[in-house]
């Protein structure tokens, strides 16, 4: 059960403005849900085109920039992008340039597949668009570049993800435990963590 690519139906008019969006609360009058999916395709195109141009010649790892529109009513975010670990900083810069703010960094420990996943959530102060950037790192030596240069707010999120899951962030100014005691060397949120 690889949850990597939920079967998000492409471009279907699932959440058109008329139908009650949100979690389908059929209030007495029609609830105006978040805007329709197609409003995000220009953003999607911008992101993919931005990523593609950066990537230069080597287009061998095409999945490095697989981005797709997602149905907000069932997922809670509009655009989802799967990015290779080294492209994370680039994705953050793209997000920063188009005015997004970093919501949070979630680390997920896929023990069964021997991988760890980093989920970067972004929200936008002026527009309802929500973006999720996924990035898979091997579980043996989980490494990812830090984005605290682009978003200073990421500093604490990365420290927390490091201490809970052991994902090292290269270039992080101060990768010491954030919530656990200073001398903590255990990673409690790993699936194989025994107290």
């Amino acid at each position, binding site marked *: 059960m690889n949850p990597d690519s939920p079967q998000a139906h492409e471009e279907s008019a699932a959440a058109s403005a008329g139908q009650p969006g949100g979690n389908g609360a059929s209030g007495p009058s029609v609830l105006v849900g978040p805007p329709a999916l197609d409003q995000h395709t220009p953003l999607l195109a911008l992101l993919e085109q931005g990523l593609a141009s950066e990537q230069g010649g080597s287009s061998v790892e095409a999945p490095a920039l697989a981005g797709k529109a997602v149905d907000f009513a069932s997922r809670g975010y509009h655009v989802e992008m799967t990015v290779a670990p080294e492209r994370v900083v680039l994705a953050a810069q793209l997000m920063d340039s188009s005015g997004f703010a970093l919501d949070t960094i979630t680390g997920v420990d896929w023990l069964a597949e021997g991988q760890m996943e980093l989920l970067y959530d972004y929200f936008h102060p002026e527009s309802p668009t929500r973006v999720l950037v996924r990035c898979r790192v091997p579980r043996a030596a989980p490494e990812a570049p830090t984005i605290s240069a682009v978003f200073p707010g990421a500093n604490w999120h990365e420290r927390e993800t490091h201490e809970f899951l052991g994902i090292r962030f290269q270039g992080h100014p101060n990768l010491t435990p954030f919530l*656990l*005691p200073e001398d903590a060397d*255990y990673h*409690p949120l790993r699936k194989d*963590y*025994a*107290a």
Partner: protein
Amino acid sequence: MEAQVECSQIVKFAVLDELLALGRANSLWPLTFGLACCAIEMMAAGASRFDLSRFGAEVFRPSPRQADVMIVAGTINKKMAEAVKTLYDQMLEPKWVIAMGNCAISGGPFVFPGQYAVVEGVDKLFPVDVVIPGCPPRPEALIEGILKLEEKLTGKRRWPRVPPQ
């Protein structure tokens, strides 16, 4: 925790001690030591409706040197245990401890197999005098706890105990 060291005074009076105990019982100055949800209920107890000052306990002293009773209101976790022990040592005798809320009594809702951060009960660090169950306990429960501590000091209960209906 070392053995119960003898820390009473050199000169003792029979009758005066009861007077001293009555004085102490009616002016218990708590240490402002709000950790989590119980701290809000402690503030509510100190505020206008529940009014701790009816029992002389509304002067919340931030400094341990000037506090009589340490109301541990919230969860003690391992990173905080060192600071809690330091605060307890810095308080001067006679001092008492009220463990307010399930977290201070036994770790409360945060005790589960594989928990790595919470000290399960403040009595693992130092002796506790009064225990107030609840999550968070109501302000009336905190007032009852303070009355229980007064009863422990003076030996008799000043307010009539309300029989549970």
